[in-house]
């Protein structure tokens, strides 16, 4: 017979170890956004402390044996860890982009990006430059500008050699709130097969037409998924 409190201590310690793993390997960037990275070390320490506190209650005695109900309850808590071991390095890809697209691009008036973009214009800037020429000019997203983008193929070419869509997610707190930002890529003669969900680095020049901005590629190469897959 197993002591119920011992089993609960073990589950707390296992979760603390899982948080420590996410923290030390940098895998936390896969699940969380920069605003909530702190949750991971915080979770590792507090869950470990909770395991320690709970372990100390064992000394007070009077503990009950682990029941079938408790086993079921503790098993539910372990499901996310089992899921991550079963599907490690899971990615948000084209399917998630199609589910999370709101269809709002250019549908209403200009709205500035909710985040401050980095020094070099990226997906978010091109997205908002499509809505506002003023914003585009401010960020240097203009016709003829050279640009390099790293993202995954979210919509492949309809026929070989035609445009395809490259995307990357912006995550604020966790992957549940991920927002896809996309740019159309014109391979412009660069040969290759670019299947859906392939990570690519595309260098080229921005071209503006009535549909918005398209990145006319001069070089396309397949790359590994970045350590931090989000913008």
């Amino acid at each position, binding site marked *: *017979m*197993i002591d119920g*409190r011992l089993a609960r201590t073990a589950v*707390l310690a296992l979760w603390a170890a899982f*948080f420590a793993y996410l923290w030390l390997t940098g895998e936390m960037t*896969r*699940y*969380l956004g920069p*605003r*909530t990275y702190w*949750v991971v070390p915080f*979770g590792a320490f507090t*869950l470990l402390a*909770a395991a320690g506190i*709970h372990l*100390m*209650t064992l000394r007070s005695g009077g503990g*009950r044996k*682990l*029941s*079938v*109900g*408790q*086993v079921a*309850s503790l098993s*539910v808590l372990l*499901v*996310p860890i*089992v*899921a*991550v071991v*079963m*599907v*490690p*390095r*899971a*990615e*948000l890809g084209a399917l*998630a982009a*199609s*589910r*999370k*697209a*709101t*269809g*709002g691009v250019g*549908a*209403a*008036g200009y*709205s*500035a*990006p*909710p985040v401050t973009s980095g020094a070099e214009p990226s997906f978010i800037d091109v997205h908002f430059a499509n809505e506002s020429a003023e914003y585009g000019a401010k960020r240097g997203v203009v016709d003829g500008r050279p640009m390099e983008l790293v993202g995954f193929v979210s919509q492949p070419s309809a026929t070989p050699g035609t445009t395809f869509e490259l995307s990357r997610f912006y995550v*604020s*707190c*966790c*992957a*549940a*709130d991920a*927002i896809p930002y996309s740019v159309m890529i014109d391979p412009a003669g660069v040969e290759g097969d670019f299947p859906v969900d392939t990570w690519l680095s595309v260098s080229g020049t921005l071209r503006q037409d009535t549909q918005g901005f398209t990145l006319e590629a001069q070089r396309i190469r397949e790359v590994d998924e970045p350590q931090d897959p989000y913008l």
Partner: protein
Amino acid sequence: MIRTESAGLRRPATGPLMVGLAALAALLVVGGRLGGVGRIPAAETFVLIFTSIVVEALPFVLLGALVSALIEVYVPDKAFARVGRLPLPLQLPAAALGGFAFPVCECGSVPVARRLISRGMHPASGLAFMLASPILNPIVLASTLIAYRGRGVGGAMVLGRAGLGLLLAIAAGWAIGGDGAKDLLRVRPSDVDLNGSRHAGGSRGAAFGEHLANDFFFMGRFVVLGGAIAALLQTSIPQSLVSGVAQTPIVGALALMGLAFVLSLCSEADAFVAVSFVQFPLGSQLAFLVFGPVVDAKLALLYGATFRRRFVVRLIAVALPVVLAGSLWFEVVVRP
């Protein structure tokens, strides 16, 4: 009538059961890996969203359980008796405004509210605190301001969100919290087991550890189940489904409230998602920001386990008209 676990669930777990469960987990992992489950886009999306919701929420659940255990073990009864003697019209807004001082997401406020009510705070006030804190807390309001600043309506959205959130918390607390604590709270077997431990002269540290673990494990499993439901819905339902009704204020607000329920976002991040619904009027976006932190798929399970039957239905019955009316009024006020 106290509902407790069935006799079958109370039976001691045997060695073979534990070994069987471990073998099942190992089989799932090995089978899943060999079967290439990780290469199925829907499975990847589900696992990533599911795990991220749980990873983000669990530390807050622990924080809530910690505060709850502190209240249970270290705050004397007379403190709650004093608060309980205050007139309700004073208690309600004070409790709702208490959310400013408790900067955690909705998962953390549920165990605290439960504990406050069980220790003698008026149920209406406990509910007002629980519903207000995920909306009124400073981190949430700051993220709302940042998200909407670029559109030049940051101040209006913060005021609208805080005002409507406060109103909803007070209205729902008053409408639902009229029941006594015994009629509102669902009794847990662990409460029965621990009954009187605070006063039995036992070690306070041991009681604290026991309450902390009880609340964490109780709430944690519902966060896991709720996270799974939210991830399943996110994986299967395209958000663009609601875009077709964007321009109709009433239907648009209802659609975004429905989406907020499905997405189960953390209130500290939902403003960044709401601002991307540019095709919807601002009033509808406000409805998303006020309704979501109060009622969503993840919380529905948590509420169902914490409160007695029909709590979720009653909460929706109050929240829906209040948020709808408030968002329409907001739309009229902010429309250029």
